[in-house]
């Protein structure tokens, strides 16, 4: 039998490869994406991911919370004019894969919605975050940030402008110090310093299965003051009242609950 020349064999191979149906399939090949296609072999570059937002909802012992209103906490009338704190290093997912190290939020009691950014799809077992900022950030120069960054100088200020760094929690208002029901005493808690950084962690059991991935977290402002007698313990700037500052920092991470 006459053998085909080599160039004819190559030409036939090219012809068959063009005519026969391909085994490859275009699609999203990232298992962490919402639209992951396990059959896809060719990246289509159209993967979509959940965008995580936290909805942080304040209350006082279950009552709706509004700045400027008077509440009774531990038997003491108190009005909050400022109630805000830093949240950082938000973790969402499994224990070993939780960190969003560049995430910093300035949570204010009159703002509830905070977009954090893209996360992977799937079941989210844990939610964790710091109340405050890590030591390296705490001692960095705040003027290096763009004005839009929550770590840049704020109004009202969230930074002491010296070594103490950021005020992790800033609470200001008026409190009843003499039991007459009138909120006419100073409430001023500026809580910070590295030693008062605290981490909240909870089993969240959230499903990141849509582009809008919103986790609603309630925080009970009354719980910031567990075992605090606001009629007598209403002022600390941390350095001048380290025990009270530490107690409120401890309390803060007991105040959060995740809606399921």
């Amino acid at each position, binding site marked *: 039998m006459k053998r085909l020349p080599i160039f004819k064999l190559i030409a036939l191979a090219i012809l068959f490869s063009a005519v026969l149906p391909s085994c490859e399939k275009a699609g999203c090949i990232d298992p962490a994406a919402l639209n992951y296609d396990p059959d896809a072999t060719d990246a289509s570059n159209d993967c979509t991911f959940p965008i995580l937002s936290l909805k942080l909802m304040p209350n006082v012992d279950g009552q709706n919370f509004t700045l400027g209103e008077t509440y009774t906490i531990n038997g003491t009338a108190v009005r909050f004019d400022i109630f805000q704190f830093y949240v950082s290093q938000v973790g969402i997912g499994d224990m070993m894969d939780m960190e969003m190290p560049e995430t910093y939020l300035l949570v204010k009691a009159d703002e509830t919605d905070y977009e954090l950014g893209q996360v992977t799809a799937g079941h989210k077992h844990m939610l964790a975050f710091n109340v405050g900022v890590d030591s390296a950030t705490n*001692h960095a*120069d*705040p*003027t*290096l940030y*763009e*004005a839009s960054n929550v770590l*840049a*100088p*704020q*109004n*009202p*200020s969230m*930074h002491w*402008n*010296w*070594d*103490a760094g950021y005020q992790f929690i800033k609470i200001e208002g008026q409190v009843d110090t003499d039991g007459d029901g009138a909120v006419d005493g100073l409430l001023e808690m500026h809580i910070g*310093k590295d*030693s008062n950084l605290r981490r909240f962690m909870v089993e969240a059991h959230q499903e990141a299965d849509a582009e809008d991935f919103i986790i609603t977290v309630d925080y009970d402002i009354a719980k910031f003051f567990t075992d605090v007698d606001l009629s007598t313990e209403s002022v600390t700037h941390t*350095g001048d009242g*380290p025990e009270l500052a530490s107690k409120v920092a401890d309390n803060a991470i007991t105040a959060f609950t995740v809606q399921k």
Partner: protein
Amino acid sequence: MLIGLIACQQGPRIVQQAAFEWDLPAGFAEPSVPENNQMTVARVQLGKMLFFDPILSVDSTLSCAGCHLAQAGFADHNPISRGIEGRIGERNAPTLTNIGYHPYFFREGGSPSLEQQVLGPICNNLEMGFNAALLAERLKNHPVYEPLAQEAYGREIGLFVLTRAIAAYERTMISGDSPYDRFVRGEDPQALSAAAQRGLALFMSERTNCTQCHGGIDFSLYDFANNGLYDSFLDKGRYRVTLDSADIGKFKVPTLRNVALSWPYMHDGSLNSLEEVVQHYNEGGKGHVNQSTYVRPLGLNPNEVADLVAFLESLTDKKFINNPAFAP
């Protein structure tokens, strides 16, 4: 010429400007300068304008210069500094003499850089009383500063430029041409009186141990020390940073240059004269538990106290104090 700053879309643009020429006294090194704040003429000039501008205070009445007066050795004569509306601050204003050589700032060392300390007094409610974010807005609306910021830093006026420019200016405040300096350099053997020469010898002696804290070319080793001023300190000094009880009552050792001008003395301005200061050390301090071991009774007689005061007075640098570069 200095070519500085890398261009990027939103960051600083490339600027080309004259480098600052240091005019250093003999034996003085250039102060270390941060990478993002290299010295140029434009930066120093902008810093000087801002240093003397009261718009840095909330009510536009008080500038940095309000507590750092040339005739007071770039400190002031109030025991405790006065802020806006006559508010009384917390401490005696420190001198800015040779401030560029310090490794940390404020009397408790609570600020790591000359740049970062700038916002301290501006935002202190007892001093200039302003909010940094609001100050940034005020500066942006100022007709003069925006082009100067662009020229000096290639970026818009704001807190970065404010803090860098003032720090650049303050680094130029170098004093090293006092009678003492001219004497020890051999330029003028008559620069020190006989009393000052005796005081110099006492100061340098192991009998007084002055140089254990006030050593070096700036008459400070910048350590933190408890000098036994009180047996109980209301202002806990370095403790405010470390929360370590061993640091209660410790403050950064100040330079002694121009000290004769910067009365009253100590962190709280509680001693009115150099005689009182020397006598404090002569008596050996109040015996606070953290008191420096170098502070102990010295047994100086009145003439020796006077000699030490004469020496300290010889550290006044009139050329520095009267330098137009440091005048409004």
